């Protein structure tokens, strides 16, 4: 160690100066340069091409502003909320997943989009989607991005092997409800002994939940997560597991892809993005063999997302310009063709690009299934406490799948939820 004391001091002082110099002295509330509108999203949530255009050529309608987008890996809400709690370097715009209501208690962290006349655009978007952006106090804290209308995905070749019709209309007529869907699964067993109709039973639960007219809480904050309709959905998931029609793949495990690539799951109900996330990316070799039909049990929505402007934004107006540009009906079409992000604006459903036949689905026009499905989704009251309750049901269903008694699991779920809601001060 031949470092002299003087050199050591100089070295250290230099590096310390390097540490503070660029950081500056005052704290910076808004992330990015003064002419940058910063955006945080997760992978595959927005059109990469449109974002790249706004990054290089500037934001249309907002002179002098450029976009700077960051893709967040890992748990998205953790990053966003930690940044909000940290009160510095908060991005101008954040993506919010379908759990937008969890941000309602923090509504003053976000800009009320009504201030920019967002109401004028209301007619462009699906009613149920639009209403999810608005807090009980009437502030519009988010703007619609994509939606997740569900459909019945199926492998035409494998259905044919089992002697089942491959026509979308006929298949939908054959499995109009969940019982029909279960019967379909049993028929598939004729040609493939280990065939399943879902990756795990939590999947059934979330799809069924997306078909119902209400979730866990009423608008005035009353808990209704113990009603019969939900109990039946819980039992339905259990029943499918008992019939051996679930693969029992753990959430987030590679097995979720395995059941698709191996063809063990020839049918599945999923949101439109499911097609891209699973068959299209995990099993490209099955291209051309997939079809889509109306889902058993009725239309529903799973997933879909929003954009919101934080109160720390350096220029909310420019941020608003960007959001409305990115989510204009034309650009939603672009997001659909590029990333399979299904529009929240029915105006785009009629565009020729949307009506193109999709080679991966044997040339089918999938919009004919998802378009009507998206329009029929019912307006559902989402509660800020959903994020406390959702994991409870998911965990208990995982327990059911590994052998827990379904009645006990239901009771335990209700007890846990009551305890959690009391703790959150919700009831």
């Amino acid at each position, binding site marked *: 160690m031949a470092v002299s004391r003087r050199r050591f001091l100089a070295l250290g002082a230099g590096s310390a100066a390097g540490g503070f110099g660029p950081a500056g002295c005052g704290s910076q509330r808004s992330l990015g340069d003064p002419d940058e509108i910063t955006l945080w999203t997760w992978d595959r949530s927005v059109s990469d091409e449109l974002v790249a255009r706004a990054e290089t050529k500037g934001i249309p309608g907002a002179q002098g502003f450029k976009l700077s987008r960051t893709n967040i890996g*890992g*748990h998205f*809400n*953790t990053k966003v*909320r*930690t940044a*909000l*709690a940290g009160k510095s370097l908060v991005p101008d715009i954040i993506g919010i997943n379908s759990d937008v209501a969890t941000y309602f*208690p*923090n509504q003053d*962290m976000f800009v009320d989009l009504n201030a920019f006349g967002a109401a004028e655009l209301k007619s462009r978007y699906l009613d149920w989607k639009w209403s999810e952006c608005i807090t009980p106090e009437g502030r519009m804290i988010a703007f619609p991005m994509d939606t997740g209308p569900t459909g019945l995905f199926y492998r035409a070749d494998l259905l044919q092997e089992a002697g089942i019709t491959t026509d979308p209309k006929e298949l939908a007529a054959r499995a109009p409800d969940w019982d029909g869907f279960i019967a379909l699964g049993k028929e598939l067993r004729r040609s493939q002994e280990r065939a399943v109709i879902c990756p795990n039973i939590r999947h059934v639960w979330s799809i069924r939940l997306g078909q119902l007219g209400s979730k866990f809480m009423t608008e005035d904050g009353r808990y209704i997560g113990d009603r019969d309709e939900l109990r039946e959905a819980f039992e339905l998931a259990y029943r499918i597991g008992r019939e051996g029609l679930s693969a029992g793949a*753990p*959430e*987030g*495990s*590679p*097995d979720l892809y*395995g059941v698709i690539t191996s063809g063990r799951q020839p049918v599945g109900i999923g949101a439109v993005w499911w097609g891209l996330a699973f068959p299209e990316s995990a099993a490209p070799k099955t291209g051309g063999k997939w079809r889509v039909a109306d889902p058993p049990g009725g239309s529903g929505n799973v997933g879909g997302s929003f954009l919101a402007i934080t109160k720390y934004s350096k220029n909310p107006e420019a941020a608003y310009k960007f959001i409305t540009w990115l989510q204009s009906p034309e650009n939603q079409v672009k997001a659909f063709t590029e990333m399979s992000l299904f529009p929240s604006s029915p105006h785009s459903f009629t565009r020729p690009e949307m009506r193109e036949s999709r080679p991966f689905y044997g040339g089918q026009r999938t919009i004919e299934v998802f378009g009507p499905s998206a329009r029929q989704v019912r307006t559902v009251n989402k509660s800020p406490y959903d*994020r406390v309750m*959702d*994991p409870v049901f*998911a*965990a208990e269903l995982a327990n059911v799948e590994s052998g827990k008694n379904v009645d006990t699991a239901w009771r335990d779920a209700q007890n846990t939820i009551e305890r959690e809601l009391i*703790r*959150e*001060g919700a009831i």
Partner: protein
Amino acid sequence: MGLADALRGKTVERRGRTAKPPPDGSRPLPGWRRYWPMYTAVSPFFLLFAVFGVFPVGFSIYLSFMSWDGIGETRPIGWENYAYLVTDSDFWQSIGNTLVIWILSTVPMVFLALVIAYALHTTVRFKAFYRVAYFVPNVTSIVAMTLVLGSVFSDSSGLLNSALRAISAGEVGWLSDPWAMKVSVAAITIWRWVGYNAIICLAGLQAISSDVFEAAKVDGADNRQTFFRITIPMLRPVILFVAVTSTIGGLQLFTEPQVLFPVDDNGNVGGPGGEATTIVLYLYQQAFVFNRFGYGAAVGWALFLLIAVFSVINWRLIGGRDEDAIGTGKRKGKSRAR
């Protein structure tokens, strides 16, 4: 003299008497002018400690009686956080997990460290090479190496299960079975720390006079007898040091389980069933994934209590009998063996 003595106030007292400032004939300065340089010298630590230690700790008492998501308003809720904590099965599970992983890692690690140290001690050649090779894991990044070992442990396609399959042994759910998950975390910890502890044990061994081993050899003791009858007893102080540091480290385990089992969409941590959730990971989850800052503060106090209890046990073990105190042990050991 060591930390144990110092904490009991001995060292400080002794030094207090023997430290020698001025009597060099210069006229004594008034107190402040004489002492300000020393106070200035020690002040950075106390200043930082006040801002980032005392204040947050005090503030966390206040926070632990609040319901707060870190963003909105705080809401006083009295003892509710603590009441919830006592009956929170996830919290107790995390304590159980931490203790199990701690035992699964510390016990084999101390043993292996001793074996390696002993082998190093009796080996003359390549010592420098071995020491470096064994120490490298400790200075490499935990995140990077956990990712590597995580892919080795992967259930469906990891190297370990491929090897098991090749020899037709049953595959193990290293990242899904409740026990195997803990073993995986423990294995990564052992891998990282065994060399470090071996080198400390080696230092302890080298402090033992070679006369003792010579005498044992003359008496016809074989390797095993020497190891268990002489080496280990004489190393007791060093082993205790290793045990204490592993306890402190083990109770604060975070990175390995956090990287091995990333936070999932529902905000769950610690893998399937949360079987690898440690206390600090649980604290992180409650505070920063679920944004329960108030509850996180309460969990922090529970963690503090737990570590305090273990520390007291440890200090009892070390400081209980003077002759075994680390640092004097090696001298005493020598005379006792003669």
